[in-house]
């Protein structure tokens, strides 16, 4: 298959915009049952998996692309996309990282994700996904000692079919929504993680998603299961080269916590967001949902959304177990012509379930930033509690910020609080900081940091430093 041609129109402000020149194997463009069969075959999947995919595909054909979000985009031609693109590795099934293609290692190193033994991050196990496949997972041995399974979902389907079969689609069913259903049919890789009973995962687990190939959709699927009394903290990062065409990313993430288990899931999303005129960029249509199945279990989503031309994403928690806790902390920054419609859903089913929502939206330039959230209290959820805080900050005069909070309460013992503010970076604050010696960018970064503090403090330390840098970079030139 053709190599991607290097893009000459590099812009300096998106430092992850480079293209890896690597030979790839890609399927012909278009989507049909034959492509799905080919994909399943290539991944050496069992028959039940193919059946599930085809069921999803048939259902997808009956569905319509949703257009209720508060943003506009041109039609997506699903037949013009490539549904599988993988770097051609000399060794198709690398046993260890030494067998991974040097170009790929270099790519991830350039992205700040060194995979090789000497340089890799201590304390963090990384699964690196390049286009449609996982190219390697670090620290596997340490994890194995504790019985933690951390591998690509393709490997999990082959090696741990009983777990995948039991949990895949248990939180986000194949028929859930247009993009999740598409993902169910064509997901090509992603991460799988299983924390056995009573284990506190000794490392942070992390997946890094990289879209490289042009006109290729990335459809990854992540499944994390935390058994009774276990704990895991999980990080996800994403980037893509700068290209003039829009690229589709439709991922599904499912989290499951059993009794007393806890999953912390953090994302720093920095997909290419298009140029300053709004050309190109990733369409990010993602379904993320966790289910607190067991009592006293906890799921928290923390996200820093700073990239993608379009973001459609509502990381949610189904609070089924009694006393379970769901949290959502979000910073969504939009600049140039980015459009984001993002928020969360907290579905309270169990007794005394609690949820917290803290959302900080920052819009600059001509961007459009929307918070959309649902708090739903079912009749069974005696004593449910929710606290929501949605703050928007506007930088400049041409951007938009909206908040769409939905509340459905069917139990009179529930207590819900909702606070919302909208503010602008004000000139007096900037002058105050400047008159103490900080320059404009330092001042704005301090103000933004203050604004986002409640969210940043939920991120693991290295990530919060990254997140701050990312926002600073994005805001450069937007203020003043």
């Amino acid at each position, binding site marked *: 298959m053709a190599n991607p041609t290097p893009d000459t129109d590099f812009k300096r402000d998106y430092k992850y915009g480079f293209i890896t020149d690597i030979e790839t194997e890609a399927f012909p463009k278009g989507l049909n049952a034959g492509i799905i069969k080919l994909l399943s075959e290539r991944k050496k999947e069992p028959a039940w998996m193919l059946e599930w995919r085809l069921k999803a595909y048939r259902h997808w054909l009956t569905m319509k692309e949703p257009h209720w979000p508060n943003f506009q985009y041109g039609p997506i031609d699903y037949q013009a996309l490539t549904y599988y693109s993988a770097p051609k590795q000399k060794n198709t099934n690398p046993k260890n990282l030494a067998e991974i293609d040097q170009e790929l290692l270099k790519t991830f190193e350039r992205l700040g994700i060194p995979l090789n033994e000497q340089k890799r991050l201590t304390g963090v196990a990384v699964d690196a996904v390049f286009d449609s496949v996982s190219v390697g997972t670090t620290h596997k041995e340490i994890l194995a000692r504790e019985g933690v399974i951390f591998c690509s979902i393709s490997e999990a389907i082959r090696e741990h079919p009983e777990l995948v079969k039991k949990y895949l689609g248990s939180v986000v069913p194949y028929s859930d929504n247009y993009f999740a259903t598409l993902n169910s049919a064509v997901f090509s890789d992603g991460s799988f993680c299983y924390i056995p009973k009573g284990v506190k995962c000794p490392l942070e687990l992390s997946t890094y998603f990289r879209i490289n190939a042009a006109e290729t959709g990335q459809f990854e699927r992540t499944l994390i299961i935390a058994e009774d009394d276990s704990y895991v903290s999980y990080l996800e990062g994403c980037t893509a080269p700068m290209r003039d065409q829009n690229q589709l990313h439709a991922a599904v993430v499912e989290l499951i916590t059993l009794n007393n288990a806890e999953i912390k899931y953090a994302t720093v999303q920095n997909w290419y967001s298009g140029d300053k005129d709004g050309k190109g960029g990733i369409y990010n249509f993602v379904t993320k949902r966790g289910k607190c199945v067991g009592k006293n279990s906890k799921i928290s989503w923390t996200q820093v959304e700073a990239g993608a031309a379009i973001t459609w994403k509502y990381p949610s928690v189904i609070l089924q177990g009694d006393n379970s806790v769901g949290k959502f902390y979000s910073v969504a920054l939009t600049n140039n012509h980015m459009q984001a419609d993002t928020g969360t859903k907290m579905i309270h089913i169990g007794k005394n379930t609690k949820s917290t929502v803290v959302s900080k939206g920052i819009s600059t330039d001509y961007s459009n930033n929307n918070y959309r959230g649902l708090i739903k209290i079912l009749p069974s959820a005696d004593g449910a509690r929710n606290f929501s805080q949605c703050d928007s900050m506007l930088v400049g005069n041409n951007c938009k910020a909206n908040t769409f909070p939905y509340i459905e309460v069917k139990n009179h013992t529930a207590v819900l609080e909702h606070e919302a503010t909208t503010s602008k970076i*004000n*000139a*007096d*604050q900037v*002058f*105050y*900081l*400047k*008159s*103490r*010696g*900080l*320059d*404009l960018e*330092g001042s704005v970064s*301090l*103000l933004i*940091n*203050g*604004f*986002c*503090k*409640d969210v940043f403090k939920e991120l693991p330390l290295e990530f919060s430093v990254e997140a701050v840098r990312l926002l600073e970079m994005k805001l450069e030139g937007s203020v003043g």
Partner: protein
Amino acid sequence: MLEIKNLHVSINEALILKGVNLTVNPGEVHAIMGPNGSGKSTLAKVIGGHPDYQVNSGTIDYEVNFKKVNLLEMEPEARAREGVFLAFQYPVEIPGVTTSVFLRAAFNEICKHQGAQEMDPIEFDEYVRGKMKLLSMANDKFIDRPVNVDFSGGEKKRNEILQMAVLSPRLAILDETDSGLDIDSLRIVAEGVNKLKKKDNAIVLITHYQRLLNYIVPDFVHIMHDGKIVRSEGKELALQVEERGYDWIT
């Protein structure tokens, strides 16, 4: 150190300063008094570099390393890094930013500019605590709270004085730092200023009332009226103003 000549300034087309002249030398304390609307705060903000004001004519020369620079051509942060400090009449709130974090960021910016060693949070904490002790603010807890958010009036003003102590400016302009203070806070602020007074720095106090000058003895008192300094004398002038008001001067 500071030489203001024939300064004319307007905001939104309205002329506020109509030819201000002022010379400040190292080691001096100047008090600028005058009725409301005479242009005192405008003068302070223009020295600090507030972007809302339009300088129509005149100059502000400031001495940096024995060389004269035109302050009006410098960004506010550049002025701050060269040792100009403005204590605000109404300090603004910075939500979510801890006062100590803000102070360290400012301190390190100035150190970086002046080629001095920057401090890490631990060193800096010790340094700030030392300054707070010096200023009789050892019991103050505001440095662990977001900058000026939910501060009392006294805390806001003490915070300004603490910033001045931490940043060690060469030229400090205190814009009505005494207004709205009870007598105890006034004493803390005034004693702080006295402790920070050195022979190579200068302080300009902008004030409505003589009472601050009971604690801080100025070398010069200037009366501002209708955008001009109309009278400059020694400290006795403040007492006369206290007794007779401003009318007899103008």
